[in-house]
């Protein structure tokens, strides 16, 4: 690229009109232009699907991993992908790498305080008996993994 060609980017940006929810609003999945590969496209309600493929000794391997996550009984769909080594990434925190889906959700709760206000008293927001939370986390989050 030459300097004269770069000058075209002094123009005003032209973003397509897009839905921006009002403060505090939830626009689930609204940022994805192409949502293929995750559960919403695959008919897996509130779920996520990560697909790993490989070949070994001439055999084609396909591993689909689906997550159904709720926090306080409400679905959470953070676009998770599983890497070949089993580690996890999420577009909710795109530079982080996690060893488990539980860790993903815990960190999302920490990183999105407007959605998940921290209850330092450990009160359960799920409406269920907090004593059923054996790990002592007061947010009632859980994951179901189907591989």
């Amino acid at each position, binding site marked *: *690229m*030459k*300097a004269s*060609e*770069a*000058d*075209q*980017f*002094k*123009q*005003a*940006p*032209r*973003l397509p009109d*897009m*839905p*921006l*929810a*009002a*403060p*505090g*609003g*939830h*626009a*689930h*999945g*609204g*940022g*994805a*232009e*192409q*949502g*293929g*590969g995750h559960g919403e496209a695959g008919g897996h309600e509130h779920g*996520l699907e*990560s*697909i790993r493929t490989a070949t070994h000794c001439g055999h084609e391997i396909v591993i689909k991993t689906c997550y159904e996550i709720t926090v306080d009984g409400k679905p*959470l*769909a*953070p*676009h998770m*992908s599983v*890497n*070949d*080594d089993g*580690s996890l*990434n999420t*577009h*909710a*925190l*795109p*530079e*982080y*790498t996690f060893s488990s889906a539980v860790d993903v959700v815990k960190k*999302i709760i920490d*990183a*999105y*305080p*407007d*959605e998940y206000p921290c209850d330092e008293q450990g009160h359960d927001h799920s409406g269920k008996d907090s004593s059923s939370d054996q790990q002592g986390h007061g947010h009632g989050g859980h994951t179901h993994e189907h591989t």
Partner: protein
Amino acid sequence: MAVTRTNILKSNVARDKFIKGVLLLKKEIANAAQQTSTWDSFVIWHYQTMMNFTPASQSSRNSAHRGPVFLPWHRFMLIALERQFQRVLNDATFALPYWAWHQDGDLTAAKQLQSPLWAKECMGGTGIPVSTGPFAFKASDPNSFRVRVINNSSGGLSLTNRGLRRTLGQDIATLPATAKVKAAVALTKYDESDWNVASTTTFRNVSEGWAPSPPASHNRVHVWVGGDMSPGTSPNDPVFYLNHCNVDRMWAAWQKKHPGSPYLPADSEPASLLGHRLSDPLKSMFSGAPPKIKDMLNVSTVYTYDTLTDFG
């Protein structure tokens, strides 16, 4: 004539121009209905590009990250923002500064937090919200720096009106050290199959920070700064550009060190790599034909760096 990008901690002039430009772009309304600014447009552009999966059949590699296009797309973003700075500052000599974070990374964890980058004269400090420096939040002052666009945990974008957030050193204690970035720049190959996040021996994947021990390099800086640098709307924090300018400088050093190593993948690779091959267009938010990846390989008439020697 090419402008010269310099270390923000070594040039008060570059630092002050950068701060002034940020505030001007933040005040320049680009969307009257949403009251979002030109600065915010870059936030949205980054997020939209990140959520454009390539190919659409998977949800990992996208038009800006987790694949070969990571470095060219962010170079394009930096060039575009630099031109916007030049416009609002009416200064054709303006060049984005960089933060040589690996030099801070050689310090103890405690001293990293005390870097002059976080002084009130520079980027301000840590906090929810940031309360010092030029981007501090003042509830009584509607003209103080406000974050306007954020993504939620499930992928939607929302409007907001709050202060900038940083949690320096909380999610990870230390920045990348010089030895790590030198090791990345020493790698010979640009990228390789699976063209995603698995490779431990290619410059793109290691400089992006997926290897050898994630989070590394670029990713580690995002995680270390935390707060608004964590989600896909990370360009909200002006530090985003200081980080990426240093990552781009790493790429410039790598290009100089390995002149015989081509950008990969080549155009002959299958359509499943659309958006990442040499002649594929970059995702743009400007009218007109978007630049191609190959347009980003030689930008020597657009900008240069004052030095590349610290990368070995």
